[in-house]
């Protein structure tokens, strides 16, 4: 684990609905983050001086589109990761949010586990280095050769299974929701009413797990999945 996690990371939250803001604050503080509720201007200042590990911005705050401020920040070269949350759900709006410099986009209503999973994934993304190999336990993934070995045995994965496993390996020990997988692994920007993702995970498990040891990918009830980082 990296050094930064020894002290709490500050998340600046821009949200004008008090109850929603308090809920988000409570959820993230329970995960060990410091949360500061701020106006758009305060958040921008915090981002400029590097006081924020990341920002969560509601699209419309007091009638103002926070994307405008985000765009300005990005033009100034401020690189803080930003999660945009919004009641505007269309694909167009998502694209707009990402174009303006948002790193992820979450549509209201959302479950708190979804939010904290995304926050963790985003803060984790910062630590990403350009590696060519990913590990967990005795499983190794070679990103160049596109091969996976577990304890010296080669595992044959279909391309989609490889992508799925790669995503887990890049976010070890983090809660990963079904929506995140759909969006990041398959690039599907809609919700499903079937348990296809679970079937994919269960197929992947069958290939990578070894008999007698606990599964590398565990189910998190009511939230999604997690790669067991200490396997």
């Amino acid at each position, binding site marked *: 684990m990296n050094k930064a996690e020894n002290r709490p990371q500050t998340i600046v939250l821009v949200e004008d609905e008090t109850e929603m803001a308090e809920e988000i604050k409570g959820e993230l503080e329970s995960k060990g983050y410091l949360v500061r509720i701020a106006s758009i201007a305060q958040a921008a200042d915090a981002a400029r001086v590097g006081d924020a590990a990341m920002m969560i911005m509601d699209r419309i705050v007091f009638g103002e589109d926070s994307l405008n401020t985000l765009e300005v920040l990005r033009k100034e070269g401020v690189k803080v990761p930003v999660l945009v949350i919004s009641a505007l759900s269309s694909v*167009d709006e998502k694209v707009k949010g990402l174009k303006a410099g948002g790193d992820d986009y979450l549509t209201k209503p959302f479950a708190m586990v979804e939010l904290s999973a995304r926050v963790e994934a985003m803060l984790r993304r910062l630590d990403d280095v350009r590696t060519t190999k990913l590990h967990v336990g005795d499983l190794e993934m070679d990103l160049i050769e596109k091969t996976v070995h577990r304890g010296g045995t080669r595992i044959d994965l279909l391309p989609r299974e490889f992508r799925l496993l790669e995503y887990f390996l890049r976010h070890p020990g983090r809660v990963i929701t079904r929506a995140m997988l759909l969006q990041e692994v398959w690039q*599907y920007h809609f*919700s499903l009413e*079937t348990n296809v993702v679970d*079937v994919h995970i269960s197929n992947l498990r069958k290939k990578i797990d070894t008999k007698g040891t606990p599964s590398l990918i565990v189910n998190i009830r009511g939230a999604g999945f997690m790669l067991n980082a200490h396997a």
Partner: protein
Amino acid sequence: MLEFFRSSAVRVALAFVLVTTAATTAVFGLVYFRIGEANEARNRLILETEAAKSANRSVEELRSAFEVRLTNDLRRIDYAALFDANHKFMFGNIDVLLPIPVDGTSHFIAATHVPGSINQLEPAIFVARERPDGTVMLLGRSLLETLAFRRIVQSALAAGLAPMLLLALAIGAYFARRSSRRLTAIHDAIGRIMKGDTDLRLPVGSRHDPIATISRDVNLMLDEIGRLLVQLKGVGDNIAHDLRSPLAVVHAQLERGLESSSDEQLRAVTKQALAHIDKAMLTVAALLRLADVEYGPKSRNFQSIDLSAICADLFEFYEPLAESKSIKMTLETHSPVQMLGDGDLMREAVSNLIGNAIKFTPENGAVSISVIREDGLPVVRVRDSGIGVEPAERDKIFQRFYRTSSGHRVPGSGLGLSITAAIANLHEFDLRFNDNNPGAVFEMIGRRK
């Protein structure tokens, strides 16, 4: 009265009057100056030729010629006189040599009185010319006639302009009054509609003018808004109904939780309540999605997309799910099927169809997807060997929240087909249902344009 001048028709009328006045004045002005100019040029030529001709005549000849001229030929020369080398008066009808250059060309004299002269002059042009013997001859012609003509033109302009101005004003006022009466009626109608009288429409009248056209357009718009309002109310009722049941369940569960004696019991109840809330949230999300597709901006940036590739991608995505139910899933595509559209939306629409097919097909069944071009139109056909749809329910499956009696046990928001239909409609596709005996066939077919 102020209202009257604010009316756009009055302003147009006033502008019309102004422009007409300016144009008329310009024409008259041109005539006025052209006539003067032409007249003067002719006079100058006559004078100068006359002066040149007379230069070689003897003084006696001139004397008699002047007398003849001044009595008989008044129309051409009004003034004639001869002065000696010292510019002293010899004979003629002007007693002083006018202060003009002695150069044989004509000059305009506006003065009515010349210093040292007893003559009263009319505005005229004069030419002074030195003769070989040193004497100076002065000829002149009055411009009175030209000026009089100009005055006539001037007064004609003044006389003509006034009635024209009045006429234009009167016409403008008439139209202003007429249109303001109609605008007031429209204004009143809009006021009443805004106050809630939504069945009222704007008065159109029998005329075929821009106001009538706009009124008709506004009325059509009001009809459409009215239709949407009714539809929205229906959707609202459905939302209320569909959210009421999970909320009631959650309410009951939480009440039970409050009275529970053990933590474990409380946790169990909370989990159940959460599951119901999740379902409600799923419904809300689906409704927002539907609203977005149906009422979102129609000007999405459509691109050329390959329906075959989208289906192949989804086939691969759903294959494990089909396998887990031992459903034999097949895909039939031959060549790219290009169409103009939003890839994300089309993917969602086809995903719903395939998801439904697998959901409603029992184990060991079959689902087939085909993407083809039929008579030049793109077609996606999803066929299953599932439970199908009862004939009585076939009209209703595309309605919002409709869940078939047999499909009620299968989880879902009941909005999937509505969203698919809305996406199909946005892309000018038709979504149709056919019987597969057993099972169902859903097909999306591009509309012939």
